[in-house]
């Protein structure tokens, strides 16, 4: 197998014959379809470097196939690690200049409005940022690349940034993965700029589950910064309706109930449908639950008549995980503050023996 792979490597040099290049890439693409195939491929650093170099190939089908190979490879955790740790200068094929590292390279294409491989590059970046032991390294890489997170969000939220048909939806999961890091979160939550606000409209973006899920994931992660809760719930960001709207259906409420709801949720039309993906619904509920940590925010959320939305959601919800999340949130909201007796739910210490019991009960429910 190794011999044949080395043969393939010869054919994918930048200067190689077009038809041979194409066939070789086809084979490699085939190999990337299996774990064992990938395991073999990543033993050859030169091959990985070549693939990165081929992204720049002037013949579009070549660049495209190469990008697809890298998408599959990067989806594998071990392989992703290899890609990031790649020692490019020493593993560069002869007679061509070494390409930039993988992070810089994919960013280059993502930011190029004329690049036809921008979407696969987003997918590669999304894959690279997913493993928990890798995303901090990628963040370092992004910071060194000279491109800021602000610019990434800008490119992501612009109406038609890429002019040749790429939609950059996979920057959603990229952001969601990156927001697992505190420094990225604090960057997104910059009070003096307009960063998180740009993401808000996409919680209702019907055209792409990937984009929508990525944005909701990012917002949910941001809700773990309790210091920013007040600001997030304030008029400056007004995040509450963004979480509630996808959870609301077309149920009619009377005058009184409508008036208390946030503006976005008043008098919803007949054709309003709920978020269809249960995982996204869970994330929305988790975000809301986080925002309820502090007492005055709990009261604020309660006063906005959040309960009626959750009540209707609970009647409609069929997914067990989402039901549990909904019930937990409702629990917090309908309880009287004296009962809760704590200003910040996050500071309560749960005794060890109870912790185990709660965990067991949740697991039972989910069965």
């Amino acid at each position: 197998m190794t011999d044949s792979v080395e043969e393939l490597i010869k054919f994918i040099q930048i200067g190689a014959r077009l038809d041979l290049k194409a066939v070789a890439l086809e084979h490699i693409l085939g190999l990337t379809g299996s774990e064992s195939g990938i395991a073999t491929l990543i033993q050859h650093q030169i091959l990985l470097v070549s693939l990165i170099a081929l992204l720049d190939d002037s013949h579009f089908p070549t660049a495209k196939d190469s990008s697809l190979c890298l998408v599959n490879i990067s989806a594998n955790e071990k392989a992703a690690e290899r890609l990031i740790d790649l020692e490019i200068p020493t593993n560069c094929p002869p007679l061509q200049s070494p390409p930039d590292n993988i992070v810089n390279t994919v960013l280059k294409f993502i930011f190029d409005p004329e690049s036809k491989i921008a979407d696969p590059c987003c997918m590669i970046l999304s894959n690279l940022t997913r493993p928990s032991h890798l995303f901090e390294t990628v963040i370092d890489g992004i910071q060194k690349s000279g491109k800021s997170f602000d610019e990434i969000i800008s490119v992501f939220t612009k109406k038609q940034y890429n002019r040749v048909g790429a939609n950059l939806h996979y920057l959603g999961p990229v952001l969601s993965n990156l927001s697992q890091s505190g420094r990225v979160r604090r960057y997104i939550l910059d009070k003096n700029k307009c960063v998180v606000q740009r993401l808000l409209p996409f919680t209702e973006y019907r055209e792409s589950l990937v984009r929508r899920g990525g944005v909701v994931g990012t917002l949910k992660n941001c809700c773990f910064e309790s210091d920013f809760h007040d600001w997030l719930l304030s008029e400056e960001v007004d995040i509450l309706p963004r979480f509630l709207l996808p959870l609301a259906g077309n149920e009619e409420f009377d005058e009184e109930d409508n008036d208390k709801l946030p503006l976005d949720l008043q008098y919803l039309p007949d054709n309003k449908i709920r978020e269809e993906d249960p995982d996204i619904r869970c994330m929305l509920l988790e975000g809301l639950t986080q925002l309820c940590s502090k007492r005055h925010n709990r009261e604020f959320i309660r006063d906005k008549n959040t309960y009626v939305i959750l009540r209707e959601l609970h009647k409609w919800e069929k997914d067990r995980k989402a039901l549990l999340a909904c019930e937990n949130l409702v629990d917090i909201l309908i309880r009287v503050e004296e009962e809760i007796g704590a200003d910040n739910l996050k500071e309560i210490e749960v005794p060890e023996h109870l912790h185990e019991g709660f965990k067991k009960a949740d697991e039972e429910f989910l069965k």
Partner: protein
Amino acid sequence: MNNSTPKNPMSEVERLELASKLDQELDEFINTLPKRQQEAPIPFDRWEEEIANHPFFMKEAPEPGDQLHPLYEGLQKLKYDPDENEPEELATAYKDDGNFNFKHKKYRMAIISYTEGINIKCGNVDIDASLSSLIDAEAALKLKPDYDKVLVRAANCCFKVENYEKAVEFCDRILERNKDDKETLALRKNSINQAKIKERDRRRRAVAANKLKKEEETIVEEIIKRGIKIEGGRENLTLSKLEPQFPELFNSRVSIGGNGGLVWPVILFYPEYKIMDYIQQFDEQNTFMEQLLHVFSDYPEWDEEKKYKAEKLNVYFENGQRENVKVDVNQTLLEILKLDSYIVREGTPKFIVLVANSKVEKLFLESS
């Protein structure tokens, strides 16, 4: 410029003199005002009725067509008079009315109010000026797309003409280069908020309109269910074909009452005196006798000979062949309307009322 001589402060005597002089002048002035007629004191048994009609003690809003207490009319005039109110106040008054009516489920009135409010030309000079500024700005931006000053102008103009989406777009263009520009951030936030209000208002109107439509469809359904004959036929029956043509009943088109039944506008015609009674709401479940007892609880003003008492009256209607058919007053309106011989014209059932066995009745029946 300085005042040369300071005035001496007034003495007590002078002060009192001035006061009495002013009093006198005031009295003289009041005497020149036209005298108001002393109204006859209201008899005690009508006191309750009078109070119920007083704007301050009304329990229910007057229906259109009701006779209004002069104070109420005055208040109305004040509220809706375009000379007394700034256009903004007027538009707000209509908007508030709309909200009030919506709350009380009077959807038709709500829509009328909202529409009036929108139609009030604010004559807002600002908007006209903003639009032309906006056109200038767009032209300038075509030449120099990153001209910040013009972008700010454009964003503000968009806000003024309520094009909030575009306002946000312009803000974003500015923020691309000036990421922490406080004014632009504020404008962006305000635009988004105003857009939410506008959207909410639009949705609310849509809900009202929808409810109205459903109500109307239900009414037509109920009429057809009952098999009531309508002039022009029941095919393609719409509510517009049931609009009363008499001004007194303009706002009393057939509707659904509290108990789910139909409530009709009805006309009673008295050939003897060539007078009509306009009944705005005759519940189909009420019998004619009940309605007559109500209408004739007192002798009407035109009943010079005090003959018209409910038990002494006969009621007739004209059928398709122009013949007069006698009504059994113990039947309900619904039972009469369902009769094969009864046809509802112009959405308003009409009936003829005569004193039983009177000369007038005899003449009337013979002539038709």
